[in-house]
């Protein structure tokens, strides 16, 4: 300290003159420094400003996706048919996880793998920056993996589609692919509706990834809307159960059941066999995915007879008292020999339906003429698509009447030479059930009933035919097994030979039954088709009618349709409600 003071004193004692060039050099140095600073500031603040701001934003601003999540598909009572549940996918940066030797075995154990297996898996992909370890894990399991806190292991939120109803309604509901886009059925038809659009927001994140500032840019997610189908899962279950049972027992190739509400045109149940389980990806793409009710056509056979008779009466060519002479059960039209099971002699129209006489139907058809038969079926919508929007909907096949000769007219009268879908045939029966009003069908629950497309036949003729169809189900009719105890049932059988490579095959058949309940004021229309039954008969009245009866019996109970002789109790505490939307 003293030395320093001494030194100071020495300097002060002997001042030396500062040479002017030293001062100038320092000034110049300072000047250059200031210039450099100002220049750099200019460069940063003015020239490169936009670039640098963009770079900065890149480092801390993030656009965060706000997922919308695919909406649910539900039945008409709100029961879920397809739901999206969040799941976690575990992904890793291979290099980082391999370096974390302490955590790797733990992670492997939680993923259900051997540590060596996981190590080998990662080593094979070491150069990658992203590899899925496991997709679609249950969130609880995924959090356990996250809790290990291993280096380079991350979770990614995804949605997985679940089908709680499983096989019961699988062909109608359809499936999505792993990226949640509709692939089949209603999932495909209403893909956009269900999908929604994800929103996004712009945020600033701090070092630990927390959002510290929400910037003004915000697009709210537009979630898809729940789709309410017209089917009632309870009826769908019964239809599925009885159809599967019948197909299994008769060794049939397949089959279908369709239930309609004739007053609204809504589809209440739609079952198709063979089926598939939509929760198992490996079953997708098999034949079971096909919804036979909508995509398959078949010859309707005798089930068209009531349609023809109603139209012939409406056209005034026959009336309700008309008698048809079916003779000994043989009738020759050109080269075609039409045969009945046996000779029924004189039959009234009710008798033609009850006995399902081919001769009777052919004679009526020939009286009506080619154009008449053709337009009769056209009026009932057998040649037009139902227009449900379901992917792959078939439209049926019917040649123009100008191409029909006598033989084609006669065969068309009992339902050969034209092909229809179950939807088309079901709709035609629904119009008979609804006093002749043909309605558009809907697979989606309706808020209000759209006006009918047209009045196909008069109210009286529709009621008359319905009454006659009760005779089919009567003890001496062809389908007494379709009867539901306590209810008035109307319906018609059909047994159709199938076309094989060399014409109609005597040994392969389709068994049909179409009907409605209660006959005086139908609330449900049902159609059952069994394709190629092998054991226990092949007639519609033997194979298809019992399925119809079982399904209808349950439907009547579930929809609370009172039986014919039902007297509601005097008390107001209970009313046999026909309200189908209220839960039981």
């Amino acid at each position: 300290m003293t030395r320093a003071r001494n030194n100071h004193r020495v300097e002060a004692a002997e001042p030396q003159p500062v040479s002017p060039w030293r001062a100038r050099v320092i000034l110049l140095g300072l000047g250059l420094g200031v210039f450099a600073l100002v220049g750099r500031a200019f460069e940063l603040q003015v020239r490169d400003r936009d670039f640098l701001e963009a770079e900065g934003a890149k480092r801390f601003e993030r656009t965060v996706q706000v997922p919308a999540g695919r909406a649910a598909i539900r039945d008409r009572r709100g029961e879920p048919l397809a739901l999206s549940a969040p799941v976690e996918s575990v992904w890793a940066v291979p290099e980082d996880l391999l370096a974390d030797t302490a955590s790797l075995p733990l992670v492997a154990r939680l993923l259900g793998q051997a540590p060596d297996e996981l190590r080998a898996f990662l080593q094979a992909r070491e150069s990658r920056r992203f590899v899925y370890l496991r997709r679609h894990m249950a969130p609880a399991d995924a959090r356990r993996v996250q809790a290990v806190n291993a280096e380079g292991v991350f979770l990614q939120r995804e949605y997985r589609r679940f089908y709680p109803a499983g096989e019961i309604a699988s062909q109608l509901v359809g499936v999505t692919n792993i990226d949640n886009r509709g692939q089949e059925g209603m999932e495909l038809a209403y893909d956009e509706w269900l999908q929604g659009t994800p929103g996004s927001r712009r945020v600033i994140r701090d070092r630990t990834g927390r959002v510290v500032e929400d910037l003004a840019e915000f697009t709210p997610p537009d979630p898809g809307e729940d789709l309410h189908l017209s089917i009632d899962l309870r009826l769908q279950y019964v239809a599925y159960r009885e159809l599967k049972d019948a197909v299994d027992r008769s060794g049939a190739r397949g089959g279908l059941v369709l239930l309609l509400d004739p007053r609204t045109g809504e589809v209440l149940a739609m079952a198709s066999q063979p089926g598939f389980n939509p929760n198992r990806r490996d079953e997708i793409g098999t034949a079971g995915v096909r919804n036979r009710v909508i995509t398959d056509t078949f010859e309707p056979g005798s089930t068209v007879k009531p349609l023809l008779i109603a139209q012939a009466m409406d056209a005034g060519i026959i009336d309700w008292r008309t008698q048809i002479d079916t003779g000994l059960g043989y009738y020759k039209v050109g080269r075609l020999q039409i045969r009945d099971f046996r000779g029924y002699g004189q039959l009234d129209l009710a008798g033609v339906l009850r006995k399902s006489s081919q001769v009777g139907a052919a004679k009526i058809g020939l009286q009506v003429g080619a154009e008449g038969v053709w337009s009769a079926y056209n009026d009932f919508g057998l040649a037009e698509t139902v227009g449900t929007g379901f992917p792959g909907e078939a439209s049926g096949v019917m040649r123009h009447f100008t191409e029909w000769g006598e033989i084609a007219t006669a065969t068309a009268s009992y339902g050969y030479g034209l092909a229809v879908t179950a939807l088309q045939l079901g709709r035609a029966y629904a119009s008979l059930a609804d006093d002749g009003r043909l309605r558009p069908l809907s697979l989606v629950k309706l808020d209000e009933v759209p006006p009918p497309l047209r009045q196909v036949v008069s109210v009286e003729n529709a009621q008359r035919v319905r009454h006659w169809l009760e005779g089919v189900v009567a003890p001496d009719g062809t389908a007494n097994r379709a009867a539901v105890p306590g209810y008035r049932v109307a319906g018609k059988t059909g047994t159709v030979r199938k076309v094989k490579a060399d014409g109609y095959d005597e040994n392969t058949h389709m068994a049909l039954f179409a009907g409605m309940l209660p006959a005086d004021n139908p609330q449900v229309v049902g159609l059952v088709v069994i394709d190629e039954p092998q054991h226990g008969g092949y007639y519609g009245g033997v194979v298809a009618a019992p399925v119809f009866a079982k399904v209808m019996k349950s439907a009547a109970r579930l929809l609370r349709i009172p039986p014919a002789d039902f007297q509601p109790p005097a008390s107001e505490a209970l009313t046999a409600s026909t309200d189908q939307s209220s839960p039981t």
Partner: protein
Amino acid sequence: MRRGWGTAVIATLIATTAIAVAVSKHRSRALLDAQQELSWERDRLKTEWAQLQLEEAALAAHGQVERVARERLDMQEPDEFVAVEVTP
């Protein structure tokens, strides 16, 4: 002297607003944090809701209910339409 007072007042105001800005910024961050916390909670609840719906659907699946009703509870489908008076 008057000018000195004016400067002092303005300086105080500036200081106050500066602090106020800092405080409101802090609060907005705290709120944002809380909001994030809540949206995580909502997410968690949504997940749980989806899981519960699935669980319910699995337990209430018609096949499952039917099996329990028939085998365990020895029930059967009613054969006839019966009206029972129920007093609430």
